[in-house]
């Protein structure tokens, strides 16, 4: 006999309100339906009522975790319309901030995944390390969540003491390599909860067009930092970790390896940080009429902004956002089919969902 069991919109396993309605037989999930839209804030419409300074502050508040990535993508598309090229130092600072944000997002996700496995000690360890990443972000930008770093044509704040940041990054890298990565890869109970769970096959990953670590864990080698580089990524050397297995463990491994690659990029970017200005000279900006599109590899996958400007307008006439969770969430249905009920919180979390971005 099958029965329906709702997970959400308010559930201890979910950080945000959304609903996964599962049809179960015993402890086995036969099918699932995902409902979103509990957190709609009308940000895209609000953006049409803001000028080019205000819209950056507004879009920063789309997401509390990847707030830098959203303004970066927005500013890149606005720079295309304004015909501005940020100075090289600004591009490097953007790369550093983006990688720090990826670090803190991945460590946060590792903590949540640990909590969903019932491994609260690991959750606390992850969040302690995340605090250190947040400290670096605060040291650079003065803020912990909404960094206010991006502006059209550069960044708002300079990195004045790159050496101190480099030391913090090195300490962080040692700690991650010593604690988080070994525990997730060697702990027997953690492995039993991840291996072979929530499999998304390569073919299914392609047909669902998933992005980011979810795609890379199903053997799809895509990463915008390498395939369509932006900011200072063309000058960075890094690998794109790809795992063929497609299960939760592969997603965990891909993110763990990405943490190490992020540290590698950070070290290079800080060492090579070029001198000079960090934004274009101040002045009134004028935007060409038309639509510009920018894509950036966020911690969860590809973020796309499409921004349209009308002739001589002060405000954008349309700002459209496509977030990685929007591309990843249909895959959850295929991942949970046939899974144990006990694994569904972890499986739905393994795409690192961010429904506040998706609902906007």
């Amino acid at each position, binding site marked *: 006999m099958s029965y329906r069991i709702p997970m959400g919109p308010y559930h201890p396993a979910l950080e945000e309100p959304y609903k996964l309605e599962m049809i179960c037989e015993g*402890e086995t999930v036969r099918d699932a339906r995902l409902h979103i839209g509990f957190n709609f804030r009308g940000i895209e419409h609000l953006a049409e009522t803001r000028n080019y300074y205000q819209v950056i502050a507004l879009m920063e508040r789309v997401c509390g975790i990847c707030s830098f990535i959203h303004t970066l993508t927005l500013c890149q598309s606005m720079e295309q319309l304004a015909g501005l090229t940020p100075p090289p130092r600004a591009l490097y600072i953007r790369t550093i901030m983006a990688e720090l944000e990826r670090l803190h997002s991945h460590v946060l996700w590792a903590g949540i995944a640990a909590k969903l496995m019932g491994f609260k*000690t690991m959750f606390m360890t992850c969040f302690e390390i995340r605090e250190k990443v947040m400290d670096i972000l605060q040291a650079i930008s003065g803020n912990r969540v909404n960094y206010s770093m991006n502006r059209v044509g550069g960044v708002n704040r300079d990195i004045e003491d790159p050496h101190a940041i480099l030391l913090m990054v090195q300490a962080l890298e040692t700690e991650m390599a010593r604690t988080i990565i070994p525990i997730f890869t060697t702990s027997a109970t953690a492995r039993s909860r991840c291996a072979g769970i929530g499999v998304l096959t390569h073919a299914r990953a392609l047909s669902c067009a998933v992005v980011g670590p979810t795609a890379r864990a199903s053997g799809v080698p895509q990463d915008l930092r390498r395939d369509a580089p932006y900011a200072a990524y063309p000058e960075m050397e890094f690998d794109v970790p790809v795992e063929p297995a497609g299960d939760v463990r592969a997603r965990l491994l891909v993110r763990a390896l990405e943490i190490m690659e992020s540290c590698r990029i950070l070290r290079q970017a800080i060492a090579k940080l070029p001198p000079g200005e960090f934004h274009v000279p101040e002045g009134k900006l004028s935007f060409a009429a038309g639509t510009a599109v920018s894509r950036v590899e966020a911690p969860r996958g590809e973020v796309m902004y499409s921004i349209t400007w009308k002739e001589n307008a002060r405000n954008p006439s349309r700002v459209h956002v496509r977030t990685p969770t929007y591309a990843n969430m249909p895959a959850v249905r295929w991942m949970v089919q046939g899974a144990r*009920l006990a694994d569904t919180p972890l499986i739905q979390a393994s795409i690192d969902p961010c429904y506040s971005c998706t609902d906007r």
Partner: protein
Amino acid sequence: MNLLTALARLLLFPGLLFAVPAAWFFLWVERKAVALMQGRIGPPFMQPFYDFVKLLGKTTPPRTGIGGLLMRLWPLLAVSAAAGAVGMLPVLPASGGFEGDLILLLALLELPSVCIIAAGFTSRSIFSEIGSAREAALSVSYNIVFLLAIVSIAAAQHTFRLEALATMPASPLLWLGIAALLVCLPARLHLNPFSLPNAEQEIYSGPMIEYAGPELALWELSHGLEWVAATGLVATLLAPHITLWWMAVLLFIALSFLLVLLLSTLAAATARLAIDTTVRFYWQCSLLFAVLAISSALLMRLRS
């Protein structure tokens, strides 16, 4: 055992007067130890007591009919059974007892778990029903190992008297039995890695989800008393035979405390297992234990 000593054991030591503060103390030790291992501060010493008093003061929406009556009855039954189990532990030397009291103790130890299962199904919430189903599956699995361990120790002593068990000299069979009991304790106390029935990230708090106020306070108390009874049983088996009563009491408390610390460490160091992995684990354990117990019993028979 006359009526007076029986009442003293049930009400004073190791019964209610000792067991209730000990239950709160062990709940605090577990929470504090896990918190310290996780780099948190943890609750203040009196927190379990405050929780109990606070919950007692809450009013809950009335449930009518037989369902409401049963929902009030299950926690009461669980608390009485757990308190009775603690009262029967042969802590003091020459504490009396009667032939077959071991069987009664095992039954009393099992009752809270049965009450939890019944409470989950009575509350008719989908989450508590899943929690109860998990508790039932878990209970069937670990109880085989638990009962095998106790029965093999009892069979070696040719008696079902608790006192004879407590005074049993150290032997491989006793150690094997204690090891088997220790394997069962995390599941019996719903600790990681076997905290499936109350897995909050999966099914909220399982069978307890519909409970609030005084009834929830009683569940918390029965959980604390289960801690005292389960760790106490292993502590009495572990403790060497001492004739001085105050030494015996101190040793009992110290051993129970160490067991609580051991279980807390295990809970802090592991993730939660899924139900099929857990059931498989316990059935493999019972197979392994059965082979070991029979071979060690044969060896003992050959040697004597």
